[in-house]
């Protein structure tokens, strides 16, 4: 069972913490990192001064109430933006907290140079130390098994309670601190110092303590800053120009106009979107080492996938029974079934299932007194010696040939042909033998995981190319590739093939993602733009990758791409929304400013707002409350389904572009109706 890593956004604890943090973040030293909201904060300060000393700021004393209102709304706007960010961070912190609980101080059995064992605190372990862990022990630090084999419960990290087997040597030798040994005894070499363990890094990442703005976030901030500067110029130059035509604008109104125009909506939500995007990846049980990696996932053009374990199950399942030597299909099916009755491997089970599905039925008493011949690496055959003396076997072609030769049987003429046919199709032939007679062949096929075909179709619609990597021969590879629907395949691949393919794709301007777990994969994982390492893999692979999947499910790379796209789309959609909103705000504020001097300007007041003051306040209130209204979208991300860029664009343009043009007209009008009727202003 999976322990759900679900944390509620609106839990009391998180919300209270976020409210507290929204005030702490008012510190200008922190605020200036968000230039758009910093401008709002400075504006708040100026309107505050204009409330206290109205005459110095172009206001008459009776406008103090208005100035105070503007100050209040601006203040709330800044708080809303801070709240959005704090809320997103709060979720990360809550996740980190659950992780931190697993990081308890434990006792370690340190092997000293003379071979004796000393009990030390886990925090005292250093890189290179050797410790011993036995059943029931918590592994004290990240390390590598150098001796032994053990079942380990990694649920603390992965949420997956089924134990995994780790052993010295090979690709499954790394262990993570905080996980628990369930059986056996292992010797571990510690590979990290205290505070740098995988768990420590995960906590830091999840918590967002070391959050750096990602490249696209920086680029977008640049545009937002540029727009902000343009609007500062627009508003500052408006004052003398307005004065020239005898229009008086008070400082508070100028700042209200400025704040309405600068992209506060996206400015206030931008960091929340980034944090929430990372968080969505984490909730998916994938740890991304940086926001950059998540963004890169959205840009992926090519995905490299291992055939075995990713596209196919890896274990071969029975697909057909082919008779040879004049035997009937029923016969071979029946004996294939008999041969596998006691075979508990996935292959064996699939033979039984298929045979039964095809109508074969073994007598109920067939197993009575039968002798089971288990598969062994030497004989490469398995089967039953029945009570009546019948010997039933299935096995590899070569071994069966030898066996028949020994028994003095003959090989049917068509066996070679059928065996070859299956091999060419990418299957594995198992020959079925009764006594010294060859009955036929079981066609074992590498089966594509359910749903993979549809996913590849989606990926193609999204414009992502898939490349399958396999050690199989080209013909086998081709068969599987065609059946699964991948765009390209590399057969008989050698370890360096992956990195070569990645480099080739990158040279054509494409961004490449891949999954991997072995030490062999490390260079390719490092070279790929998105390298997703399996948690079950080696430390080297995890170090080289920029994402680690705690569930070790290689197909997740596809979902990660989706999350990356969703992150970028959310930014784009809310930016578009934010800028489109400005049009309505102009129509609310500009007529309000000019109407005193030139009443005819009212034709531009398309919303027919109740009074100039109410118009400005309504626009400002709209501008503030749209931030919390959009927090759910920022946190959840805009809806994303895999489809072509054009379809996505149309959808988002309609909702956030056109919607962004219309929504404020409706919103400002509503707010105006409320403040004019309820408050009678």
């Amino acid at each position: 069972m999976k322990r759900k890593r679900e944390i509620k956004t609106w839990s009391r604890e998180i919300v209270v913490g976020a409210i507290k943090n929204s005030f702490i973040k008012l510190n200008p030293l922190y605020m200036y990192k968000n230039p758009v909201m910093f401008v709002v904060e400075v504006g708040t300060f100026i309107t505050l001064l204009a409330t206290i000393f109205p005459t110095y700021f172009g206001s008459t004393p009776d406008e103090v109430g208005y100035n105070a209102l503007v100050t209040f709304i601006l203040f709330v706007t800044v708080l809303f933006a801070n709240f959005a960010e704090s809320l997103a961070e709060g979720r990360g912190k809550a996740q980190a907290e659950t992780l931190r609980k697993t990081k308890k101080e434990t006792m370690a059995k340190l092997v000293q140079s003379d071979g004796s064992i000393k009990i030390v605190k886990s925090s005292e372990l250093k890189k290179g130390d050797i410790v011993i862990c036995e059943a029931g022990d918590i592994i004290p630090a990240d390390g590598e098994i150098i001796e032994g084999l053990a079942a380990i419960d990694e649920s603390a990290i992965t949420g997956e309670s089924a134990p995994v087997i780790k052993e010295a040597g090979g690709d499954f030798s790394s262990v993570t601190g905080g996980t628990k040994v369930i059986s056996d005894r292992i010797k571990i070499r510690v590979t990290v110092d205290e505070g740098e363990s995988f768990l420590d890094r995960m906590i830091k990442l999840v918590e967002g303590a070391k959050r750096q703005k990602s490249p696209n976030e920086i680029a977008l901030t640049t545009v937002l800053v540029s727009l902000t500067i343009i609007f500062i110029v627009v508003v500052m130059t408006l004052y003398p120009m307005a004065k020239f035509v005898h229009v008086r604008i008070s400082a508070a109104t100028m700042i209200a106009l400025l704040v309405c125009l600068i992209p506060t909506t996206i400015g206030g939500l931008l960091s929340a979107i980034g944090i929430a995007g990372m968080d969505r990846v984490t909730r998916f049980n994938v740890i991304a080492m940086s926001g950059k990696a998540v963004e890169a996932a959205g840009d992926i053009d090519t995905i490299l996938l291992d055939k075995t374990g990713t596209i196919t199950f890896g274990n071969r399942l029975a697909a057909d029974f082919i008779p040879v030597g004049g035997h009937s299909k029923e016969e071979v099916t029946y004996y294939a079934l008999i041969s596998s009755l006691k075979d508990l491997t996935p292959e064996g089970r699939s033979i039984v299932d298929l045979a039964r599905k095809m109508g074969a039925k073994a007598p109920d008493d067939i197993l009575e007194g039968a002798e089971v011949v288990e598969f062994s690496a030497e004989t490469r055959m398995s089967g039953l010696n029945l009570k009546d003396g019948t010997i039933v076997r299935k096995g590899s072609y070569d071994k069966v040939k030898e066996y028949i030769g020994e028994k003095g049987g003959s090989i049917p003429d068509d066996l070679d042909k059928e065996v070859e046919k299956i091999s060419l199709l990418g299957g594995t032939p198992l020959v079925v033998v009764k006594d010294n007679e060859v009955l036929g062949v079981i066609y074992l096929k590498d089966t594509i995981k359910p749903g993979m075909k549809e996913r590849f179709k989606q990926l193609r619609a999204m414009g992502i190319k898939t490349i399958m990597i396999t050690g199989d021969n080209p013909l086998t590879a081709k068969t599987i590739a065609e059946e699964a629907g991948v765009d390209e395949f590399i057969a008989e691949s050698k370890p360096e093939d992956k990195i070569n393919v990645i480099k080739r794709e990158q040279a054509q301007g494409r961004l490449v993602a891949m999954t991997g777990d072995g030490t062999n994969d490390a260079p390719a994982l490092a070279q790929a733009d998105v390298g997703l390492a399996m948690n079950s893999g080696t430390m080297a692979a995890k170090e080289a990758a920029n994402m680690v999947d705690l569930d070790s499910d290689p197909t997740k790379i596809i979902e990660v791409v989706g999350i990356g796209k969703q992150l970028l789309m959310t930014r784009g959609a809310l930016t578009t929304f934010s800028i489109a909103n400005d049009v309505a705000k102009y129509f609310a504020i500009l007529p309000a400013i000019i109407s005193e001097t030139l009443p005819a300007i009212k034709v531009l007041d398309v919303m027919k707002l109740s009074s100039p003051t109410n118009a400005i306040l309504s626009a400002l209130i709209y501008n503030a409350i749209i931030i919390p209204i959009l927090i759910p979208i920022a946190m959840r991300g805009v809806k994303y389904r895999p489809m072509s860029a054009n379809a996505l664009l149309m959808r988002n343009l309609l909702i956030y572009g056109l919607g962004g043009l219309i929504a404020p007209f409706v919103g400002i009008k509503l707010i105006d109706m409320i403040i004019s009727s309820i408050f009678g202003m």
Partner: protein
Amino acid sequence: MYSNIELFTMIAIIVLLTKPLGTYMYNIFEYKPMRSDKIFLPVENFIYKITGINPEEEMDWKKYALTFLLVNMVMMIITYFILRVQQFLPLNPTGAKNMESSLAFNTVISFMTNTNLQHYAGEDGITFLSQMIVIVFLMFTSAASGLVTAAAIMRGLSKKTTNLGNFYADFVRITVRLLLPISMLATLILVWQGVPQTFAGKVVVDTLEGGKQTIITGPVAVLESIKHLGTNGGGFFGANSSHPFENPTWLTNMIEMLLMMLLPTSLIYTYGLMINNKKHALVLYISLFVIFILLAVGAVYAENHPGVAYSKLHIYGKPYGNYEGKEVRFGVSQSPLFATVTTAFTTGSVDSMHDSYTPLGGAVPLILMMLNTIFGGDGAGLQNIIMYTILTVFLTGLMVGRTPEYLGRKIETKEIKLIALAILVHPFLILFSSALTVMLKVGASSVTNPLYHGLTQVLYEFSSAAANNGSEFAGFIGNTVFMNIMTGLVMFFGRYITIILMLAVAGSMAEKIPAPPSPGTFRTDNAIFGAIFIAVVLIVGALTFFPAVILGPISEFLSMT
């Protein structure tokens, strides 16, 4: 009655010429073998030889930008001194004096930046020699400078090398193969229609009244052709293209408009060929024409429906449009059309006085200069179009869930910083200098109208300078030391900052490996992109200039109703 038949005739002609001329420019920029090599190659090789240019030398963006800047500076310095001592030089039949320093400063910047804001009167402020070796010379070189820098930018967006070409060779080729031949042909047509081309200077005639009248002629036709072909706009006479010697007939008026439109429209086709994406170029072409037509039709409508004040003025029993400040031979439809063309294509020549337009009719040229992207001047216009296109791609491209990419190349922080800065320059120059002018007494004294119309005058002057247009709201007093320096600086920064930033963008984009398009990439070659592009140009433009336009022309319009 009025119709837009001239507008659509012109567009039809331009559309027919776009492909051959666009291809021709492509061949020039790409150094393709051409049939005309026989004639032009010897000329070019001769120029390379005497100037010591090595046309094979490749320049990266920095070198290209630096060379462009240096060559322009040298030309400005030389022409500045010519203007300052012109009265001592030959060919001065009208007896022009040496130009005052602030005016000469303004004039050389104005003509070198392809603006041609004229604070001097052509009739008596400048000698014939200056007309030719300063004015006409700069008209050729400024157009060539715009075109070749555009070529370099196009190469950066399409090539796989970081080199953008050779400025000198580009400059020579575009002048020899494009600007000279077309303007020669145009000169002949204009002379046929009655535009003078003579060194005779003053002609004194006896009038019917018995008095004497001095008529100034001169080498007008040659100036007139490059003035429009090169989207320059400075007139031989103060009255510019409303003067009968500059623009005598309906036909010359049409030809002048066509000449203005010729290169900026064709250059978009060239762009399509350069980037190997003709559909993207077509989308831009159509989108720009949509905005152009909307504004042109609007201006013609406004001048034909001048409102209450004119409703009682009838000619032959019919209400007529706003004839104030317009030549009778062009009327109330062709004049605003000319005004639209001259500001869309940032030429700045005028065949009527824009100051006398109805508020909304006059707002059209103002808005076109504020947008500064509706085709624009030779080369510089395309650069602004690319700038807006990249901005559009960046703002909306994220919505397909990828880092925005243009022509397969990712738009990242470095490019967007440059673009953001380039976008900022234009509104900053206009709004800042307008505000400063109305605030300062020395500036406000140039404004000859009160209130809304006065503000429009100021906005017009600086929009014209910043957009490198050069047309004037005639009532405005330009020739003061303050205005000469202010507009001089605005023209200078408006031109060079944008071009250098765009060259930097091109240099940075050239370093990227273009990714082939896939169904997952944001498309820039379909109708949706066209619509988004129009929306971004209009919304960004509106958000920036809406307050100023409301306080100026719109308030003026509303105060009249």
